[in-house]
């Protein structure tokens, strides 16, 4: 019971933070709401008993991604309070339509699908770090290496992109 | 202060030897030889003094503006040569109503602030100076405090801070 109540609280927080992220006038506030939302999703991972991924979520998103975003905010110094036309006016109705439609479809699918013949278990099964590591290093070795190469390439690419060029 | 003569003392003789075409007079005071020249020939003289190897006045040590009352403003330059170790003073006298002197910033980077100071303190105008604005005083203050005519508290009077009579009493 306690778990469910907590779950609903976190779910509400995630939705609220996400809404704050996309609706907030100030980009800075958006970034901070985003952190809340990401942390909430991390907590969701805990509910799903994947502690490892929850911590990875904190480390990568909390420690790196949001920091990068805030850093970019600082460097581009968009007005912290946001500009009055921060919303793309002409696209707004379409955006609402599309996101609303997508949400309706997804919820419809989620609710209306029989996910597994024979029924879905009530509660999540525990996923230990050992299982993850075995799967990751045994079966997904090649993608793992490729992902690391991707990170390296992204690193170099980002450096080259953001580098101050001569005479600039 | 001795009066200007045409027998050039000390370093002034050297300057006359090499830049004799430029009309100037010379004198000597307790520390340096002095060259007196008008603003029109000043830049030519300084260029020569800077460029001629025998003179090589490569160092501008000081610029002083003096308000000589009805004689007008005078600007006193002190030069030094690191190469030869000699120093000289150049007096540029401007007429009372026309305090224009060519700037030396093109030759000596050091002249920048000195000239700005002289300009704000005495109202000298250095023609060609790239950035002739107030240095020590506020940017929007339009007084020349070192003019003899400037009362000691004029600025305060203008700003309405104090309305006692101007000047100290000794």
């Amino acid at each position: 019971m306690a778990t469910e109540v907590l779950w609903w609280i976190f779910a509400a927080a995630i939705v609220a933070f996400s809404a704050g992220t996309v609706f907030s006038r100030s980009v800075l506030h958006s970034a901070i709401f985003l952190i809340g939302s990401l942390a909430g999703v991390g907590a969701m991972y805990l509910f799903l008993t994947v502690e490892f991924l929850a911590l990875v979520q904190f480390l990568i998103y909390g420690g790196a991604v949001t920091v990068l975003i805030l850093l970019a905010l600082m460097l581009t110094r968009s007005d912290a309070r946001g500009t009055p036309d921060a919303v793309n006016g002409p696209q707004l109705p379409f955006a609402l339509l599309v996101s609303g439609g997508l949400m309706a479809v997804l919820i419809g699918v989620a609710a209306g699908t029989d996910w597994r013949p024979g029924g879905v278990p009530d509660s999540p099964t525990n996923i230990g770090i050992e299982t993850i590591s075995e799967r990751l290093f045994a079966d997904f070795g090649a993608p793992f290496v490729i992902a690391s190469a991707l990170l390296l390439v992204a690193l170099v690419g980002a450096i080259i992109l953001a580098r101050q060029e001569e005479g600039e | 202060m001795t009066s200007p003569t045409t027998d050039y003392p000390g370093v002034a003789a050297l300057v006359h030897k090499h830049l004799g075409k430029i009309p100037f007079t010379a004198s000597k005071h307790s520390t340096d030889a002095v060259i007196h020249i008008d603003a029109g020939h000043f830049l030519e003289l300084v260029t020569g003094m800077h460029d001629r190897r025998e003179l090589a006045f490569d160092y501008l040590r000081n610029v002083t503006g003096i308000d000589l009352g009805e004689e007008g403003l005078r600007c006193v330059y002190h030069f030094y040569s690191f190469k030869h170790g000699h120093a000289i003073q150049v007096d540029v006298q401007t007429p009372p109503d026309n305090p224009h002197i060519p700037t030396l910033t093109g030759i000596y980077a050091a002249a920048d602030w000195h000239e700005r100071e002289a300009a704000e303190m005495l109202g000298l105008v250095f023609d060609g100076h790239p950035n002739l604005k107030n240095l020590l005083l506020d940017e929007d203050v339009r007084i020349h405090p070192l003019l003899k005519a400037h009362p000691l508290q004029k600025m305060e009077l203008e700003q309405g801070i104090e309305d006692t009579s101007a000047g100290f009493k000794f």
Partner: protein
Amino acid sequence: MMLFADALFGLPNWIDAIIRVVLVILSMTLVVIYLTYGERKVVARFQQRLGPTETGPAGLIQGIADALKLVTKEDIRPKNADRWVFEFAPYATFIPVLMMLMALPFAEDWGVRDLALGMFYVFAILGLNIVGILMAGLGSGNKYALLGGIRAAAQMVSYEIPLVISLLCVAMITGAEKDMNGTGTLNLNAITAFQETRPYIVLQPLAFLIFFTAMLSELHRAPFDIPVAESEIVGGCFVEYSGIRWSMFQLTEYASMWGWSVFGSVVFLGGWAWPFGVDAHWSIQLGTTLVKSFLFIMLIFWVRTTVPRLRIDQLMSFCWKVLLPMSLVQMLMNGFILVYDWPQELLALTSALGAAALVAIIIRRAMRRPSRDLVGTYKTLGAPAQ
């Protein structure tokens, strides 16, 4: 789910948790107050001064007085600051530190929670610490704060990498312990217990050096204090804060210093287990941990009083060109030795060689400095050598 410790005093689980949290918070407050006092005293001694003497015997209640003063000061918020961000920033920095303290084993079974992924938890949570500082930098509406925020972000993100790798090295060698069958552990209590006979600093001196350096950087302590550099950007992110919010930052700084020190002593210095063993009385274990952590803090103070500050590019190049390669080397060496099951002495040997290399790199750079002949030849009236 996470591993929970046995309930203290046989109380229900949630009451037990509350008791433990309150205890940790209280002791943290006390430690912080006396750390500020201690720092002033220690630094004063380093600088041939006396430090606080007036308030209380030998100035002992100076910290409390300071705290009182700060709490009662006016809380000022600049007009063009972003209100919520500005006001929430101190708490955003403080919460991760508090959460970290929840996972530290001060003695066997003397921590709030004993987590299976404890080590990972600690540095994952501390990664969130930056967010608060960035919020302060962005929300203050001050250019110094902004610069400080940018510097802090760049610095902390960079130094997190060698830090994590140096900790990974330790996590790797736990796999070589008895009963582990080649799979390491991230549980801090387990790691501590493994060090009963010898602390991991013996096996991993290089990793320890890297950890200590990166830790200084994460804490913004000299010589890596460029985000708060007093002489350049006047305190960086904290420039606009005053009163209770500023004291919150101060609290965070010292609490995280303490937390890091405990963490470091647990991971590298054997925590509560060495040298008195896992069976010692809890008070001895607690004392051991605290002494080790204060030694750490002493070291931090010492470094702070003696070295000048690095420049941002020097800081970055030190991280990316020295610390990161060295930490990767350490990890690779560990990997080889562990995979081929070579004896642990080799771990100690190779790591010591690496540490020697790191020190040698720094010393070689120091020796490259221009000779002091200039001063030497002018000390007397003799003719200069030039």
